[in-house]
């Protein structure tokens, strides 16, 4: 297997431009969690011209709704949720500086176009590998929307969080190219 690339947040244009689909990465730094409900609220804030609960410049959002932490643990199991539900929101977030998303499953053409335009990247983490992924999460701070429970926005500190580049800023899409490569007619 190819060498895993280590990357740190916040992401810069240079880091993002150096990533291409199929690259396996280990992410270290801070990432923010948000799912459907939190995205809806953030986009509503942007529509009203208000500030987001965190400064999005250079940051990454992880689409996740973790299970509750057992006593003494930083977080419960924390694998990705399906990303297409965020197609309506992610382009807006990228416009205000977000550099990456982590989820599972393909994102739409509207997202692909924004990744290219704004030099951003979409990673996948292995759906269902939630207990393993949780091991790379060393910090967990509630940022906003506590009432949303598993859907609240949290700032996670991660060390060597395993992900794979699925859609890059050069127009690459592993869901199209990867599948075409292994399809047997």
């Amino acid at each position, binding site marked *: 297997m190819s060498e895993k690339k280590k990357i740190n947040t916040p992401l810069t244009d240079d880091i993002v431009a150096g990533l291409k689909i199929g690259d396996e990465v280990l992410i270290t730094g801070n990432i923010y969690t948000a799912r459907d409900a939190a995205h809806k609220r953030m986009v509503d804030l942007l529509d009203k011209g208000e500030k987001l609960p965190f400064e999005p410049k250079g940051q990454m959002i992880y689409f*996740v709704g973790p299970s509750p932490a057992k006593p003494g643990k930083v977080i419960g199991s924390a*694998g990705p949720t*399906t990303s297409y539900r965020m197609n309506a929101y992610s382009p807006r977030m990228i416009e205000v500086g977000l550099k990456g998303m982590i989820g599972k499953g393909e994102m739409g053409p509207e997202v692909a176009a924004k990744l290219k335009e704004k030099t951003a990247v979409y990673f996948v983490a292995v*759906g269902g590998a939630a207990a393993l992924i949780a091991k790379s999460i060393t910090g967990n701070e509630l940022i906003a929307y506590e009432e949303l429970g598993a859907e609240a926005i949290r700032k996670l500190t991660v060390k060597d969080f395993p992900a794979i580049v699925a859609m890059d800023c050069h127009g690459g899409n592993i869901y199209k190219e990867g*599948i075409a*490569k292994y399809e047997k007619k």
Partner: protein
Amino acid sequence: MRQIITDTIIQAVRKISMEAAYDLGEDVVHAIEEFKKREESPVGKGILDQVLENAKIARNEQAPMCQDTGFAVLFVELGQEVQITGGDFYAAINEGVRQGYKDGYLRKSILGDPLERKNTGDNTPAVIHTEIVPGDKIKITIAPKGGGSENMSEIKMLKPSEGLQGIKDFVIDRVRRSGGNPCPPVIVGIGIGGTFEKCAMLAKKALLREIGHRHPNKFYADLEVELLGKINRLGIGPQGLGGTTTALDVHIEVHPCHIASLPVAVNMQCHAARHKEVIL
């Protein structure tokens, strides 16, 4: 009449709710190991490694293998010689789910109303399917179901003239359109025949069968093998990133059907194919 008190049911359901979340069945683990040997994509192989490692961590640490610990779906086979005492049977099952999800630190994913979308906070109510069977025992199976794979499921009322080819096309198309969303490798449950609701139920029940076990009727057993082969040639692969391991198995259940209909249902199941049972 054999008497069973509701407290026994609560305790049993509490326990299997947690076990299902932590402990992936050996049949699934074994199937992933076998498919990994033949996986052609290096990225795909790496993903299958992660899935296996994850199952090990979940079991050892008694942690949910997936954060989506699902809708609690329970299948109950109630012996007709059993008398339930001490309270309401369905309330007891829901109480078991409530305790299991709370004490097991499982995620609560159930909304009280589909449009109001407010969380009930304890993962109830469960979906409970009850069948009355001969005997004096109760068999309870829990099969928690995550949203990612459930959302990729579909039912279609085919025209009888579409026949076997119509069924094959529908199944393959459903899997293809699902891509990486249901967390492949998947298990594909297929219902053929019955009425609208019966057909969906057959597809769901098909998922309870152990991986590698074939339908007793040779025609359907062969169809399972054929569809599995076709699905694994689609190229979707682990997590939909390309590869040769898209499905671990295909299970078909059939039921007699009306002269005017040919229903077919596909229930997708992710690799976190959780089910645990208890016999009281």
